[in-house]
């Protein structure tokens, strides 16, 4: 229940709450307080009609605004300004990984995650097949109409004790960007930020896998 000002009368306090009572955004305690007052003071019911009238006009006024909007594509293009991308990426990794480590993992959840991880492994194997078919090398997936850089190239899981800053650093060193996650099993989808060759990509994954203190698992097409 909200207190307003001890110098205000009960009537004034109730009057102040009425707009939210009409829009249905008052908490339960204040709603009960308003209703009790209205039951005893029916003269105030007139206010509800005034407020409803004000709301109708306000909604109509807003809905009548003809949007002059920049296309989503143009705004997204502006996210690629120098400096913006790397900062957002780093913040994203830190936030995602922080959320993963802070999440409670009771036994049942662990088993569910393990089961999900098996599915993820199967998906990764299928992804790997797609990535390597017809070439024998490592390539990002691409097909007409879909930009190749949008496809994740691997799934990575981090160890429980990995410092967030170290994870961010090792991903940055290897030009990898998190594009989704956390997924079941604690995996993150990643893709390369540059156009590294298949051989270069393999080298980088090997380097990442060598960091046993940070990396729990990496699933690629290799």
């Amino acid at each position: 229940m909200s207190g307003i000002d001890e110098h205000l009368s009960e009537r004034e306090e109730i009057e102040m709450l009425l707009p939210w009572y009409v829009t249905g955004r008052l908490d339960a305690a204040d709603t009960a307080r308003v209703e009790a007052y209205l039951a005893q003071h029916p003269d105030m019911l007139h206010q509800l009609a005034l407020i409803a009238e004000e709301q109708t006009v306000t909604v109509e006024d807003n809905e009548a605004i003809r949007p002059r909007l920049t296309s989503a594509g143009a705004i997204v293009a502006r996210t690629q300004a120098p400096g913006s991308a790397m900062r957002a990426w780093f913040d994203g990794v830190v936030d995602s990984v922080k959320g993963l480590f802070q999440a409670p993992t009771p036994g049942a959840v662990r088993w569910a995650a393990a089961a999900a991880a098996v599915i993820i492994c199967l998906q990764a194997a299928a992804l790997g097949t797609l990535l390597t078919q017809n070439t024998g090398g490592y390539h990002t997936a691409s097909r007409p109409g879909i930009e190749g850089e949008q496809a994740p190239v691997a799934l990575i899981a981090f160890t429980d004790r990995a410092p967030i800053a170290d994870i961010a650093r090792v991903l940055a060193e290897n030009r990898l960007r998190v594009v989704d996650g956390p997924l079941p099993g604690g995996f993150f989808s990643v893709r390369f930020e540059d156009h590294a060759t298949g051989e270069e990509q393999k080298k980088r994954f090997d380097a990442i896998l060598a960091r046993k203190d940070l990396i729990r698992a990496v699933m690629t097409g290799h």
Partner: protein
Amino acid sequence: MQDQTDDRTLITRIAGQDQAALRALLGRHQLRVYRFVLRIVRREAVAEEVTNEVFLEAWRSAGSYEARSSVGTWLLSIAHNRAVSTMRRRREEAIDDETAGAIADDGDDPEVATQKLDKAAQMRRCISALSAEHRTIIDLVYYHEKSINEVSEILGIPLNTVKTRMFYARKKLSELLAAAGIDRGWP
């Protein structure tokens, strides 16, 4: 609740620099943010650019979103800050005063004014004549249907100020209507 969950998922994906998620967020919130901003800055081109800046800031700061409020409230909070600072830069507050003065003058001849405009149109005109602060809170409560707590967060003002500001916005609206010849019997 589902929408809120979906919105939060989008923000998590945006924090991971997922541009498709930003597109989805724009699809859901761009129009409402634009309308909110336009009602403050009153210039379409300015509102468009401020709206763009809101989503670019969301892109940059998605990692710091703490989910204490809904994504819609968070975006409106960013929008309000940006719109107000833009207004300050452009010194457009004076325009509000001029508009309010023009409305008060109309009230000199209430019978003529009433004949010219029906009640809803008069109210629309009087709402438009309110100060930016009063218009903004009326939009947040009536159109965006924000709670007292949410308005407090968006505007960065105490809960009690939210209630009193809304009260005085309504009171001023009634006074403007009365000046235009429409007596609502309140206050």
